[in-house]
């Protein structure tokens, strides 16, 4: 299917699906210029004003059918945010607790709203679409490194979907993760709104930061032991802590090799929480080459009228 036809089809589908739920957009615009799929919206008494962003896609490219399914899946996912996400608690949490909490909320909120879409029956084949998107992404990208701190939001997004009942083509990485218990705890919390999710994310962030601090202290201790107190901390030098108190997975936390690897990965690029990033990569060869990053978009197209005397 030609790119521009696919775009029009996806846009029409979004409007039609939203309308079928008895609601209408006060204003809806699409931008096929992003790196990932995303939605920015406001809900007020007059209706919903939304802008949905999709990955850049060449109008003339021949797009495979599977990508079409993925795009519809993303579109329904973004509609899920419009239906079931509240912006205010999310924005406040990010404002007061930092962008990492924002990413944690995203990781927890995505599976929640997808389950809400499935339960609502707004889109009868929502489960199939969401499942297809997650499988496509994971099969292409692989799963995240379980011991990389920056991958936590992505792990939450995937493991949350596993709890939704999707067939994830990889086994759970939570047992191998140093923060597995905390993530498991967060995913099991009964959250019925974005505000609940934000509360869970804030608490999870505190737990993770605390654990991280303990790890760092432990690392410093190990460093110090290696430097001058070899006799006293001889065991630490071999990478085994003498008494790893308050550690969920002491054996893994204590291994210097693991810690070293983690430190290296934190300097590199984290696996993004947005599944749309993978789609963007998938479509990157279809993006018109040489186009400026500031691509013009039609923010609004209107028709002038003739006012005759």
């Amino acid at each position: 299917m030609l790119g521009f036809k696919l775009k029009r089809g996806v846009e029409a589908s979004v409007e039609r699906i939203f309308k079928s739920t008895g609601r209408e957009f006060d204003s809806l615009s699409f931008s096929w210029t992003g790196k990932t799929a995303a939605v920015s919206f406001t809900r007020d008494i007059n209706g919903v004003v939304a802008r949905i962003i999709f990955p850049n896609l060449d109008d003339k490219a021949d797009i495979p059918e599977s990508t079409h399914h993925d795009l519809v899946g993303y579109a329904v996912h973004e509609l899920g945010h419009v239906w079931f996400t509240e912006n205010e608690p999310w924005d406040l949490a990010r404002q007061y607790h930092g962008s990492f909490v924002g990413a944690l909320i995203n990781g927890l909120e995505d599976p929640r709203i997808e389950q809400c879409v499935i339960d609502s029956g707004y889109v009868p084949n929502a489960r199939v679409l969401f499942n297809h998107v997650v499988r496509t992404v994971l099969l292409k990208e692989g799963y995240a490194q379980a011991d990389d701190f920056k991958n936590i939001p992505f792990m939450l997004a995937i493991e949350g979907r596993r709890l939704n009942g999707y067939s994830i083509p990889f086994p759970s990485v939570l047992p191998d993760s140093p923060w597995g218990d905390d993530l498991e705890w967060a995913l099991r919390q009964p959250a019925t709104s974005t505000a609940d999710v934000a509360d869970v994310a804030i608490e999870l962030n505190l737990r993770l930061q605390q654990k991280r601090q303990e790890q760092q202290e432990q690392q410093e201790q190990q460093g110090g032991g290696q430097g001058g107190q070899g006799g006293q901390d001889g065991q630490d030098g071999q990478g085994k802590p003498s008494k790893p108190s308050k550690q969920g997975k002491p054996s893994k936390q204590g291994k210097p090799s693991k810690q070293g690897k983690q430190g290296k990965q934190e300097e590199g690029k984290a696996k993004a929480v947005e599944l749309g990033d993978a789609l963007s990569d998938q479509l990157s060869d279809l993006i018109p080459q040489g186009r400026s990053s500031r691509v013009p978009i039609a923010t609004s197209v209107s028709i002038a009228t003739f006012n005759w005397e």
Partner: protein
Amino acid sequence: MKLNRAECEKTYLATPEIQNSGALRSNLMRLLRSIDLVGWSSHEESGRLDRRALTRFASGSVNIFSRRQMIEAENSAVTVLVDLSSSMRKGVVKDGETIERIQVVRDVTIQLSRLLDRAKVDFNVTGFFQFRSDSCTEVKTHSGETHELRGEDCVFVPFKQWNETLVRCVAKLGAITNFCRGATPAYTAIERSLLDLSKQDSKRKILFILTDAEAFEGSHIKHLDDLAERLGIKMVAVGIQTYDVAVFKHHTTVMDLQGLGEQAFAKLLQTLRRRHVAS
């Protein structure tokens, strides 16, 4: 803004013929006219007896009949896209009177409309402008990423729509100069016009752009040119006192406003001929 219908109609009717364009117009007319061609086929085994085949009949041939044959005409669809940005108010002073670009464009558009109508070509005339200059929007996604987008708020003015008769659009075409304002959302206007034109059933499709815009982004126009080619549309840009239209594949620049009509018609004819030979 209220428009005076009578005055606009008067303006339309008062539009003079473009000078020295008789031959150009008749050539254009011949190329654009959609007439079904009727001919006769020969060497048929049934039909009307072909008297020229009697010699073959004497030698025992049986396929000596001929039949009426109809070749369907190649229909054309043309979109005339007129830049209505405020810079079109600029012009030249001649005999103490200022002739604005938009006035000349209006005259050329009206002449072109008359010609296309006479040739029974499906066409529409659309103007475009933007109330304010490009807005640079930063869109923040849930994941905290920001995207920088250049927003174009494009306003289309449908002077003549598809399937609307020219008679009904006389006043609207006469009012072209009244809509001149704002900036030039060229990318959006051209892209939407291409997509609109692609929906027409006609075999030949031409997008004719009259603009004085400057500083086109070359890669964007190339993208639009490629899109037009893919959609089977010939896109012709006529630059009015600007050389920047050179980024279009098919373009011409008119520096002397008086020559706009002649050059515009000549470019259209040239494009059509190329198309005609190719098809």
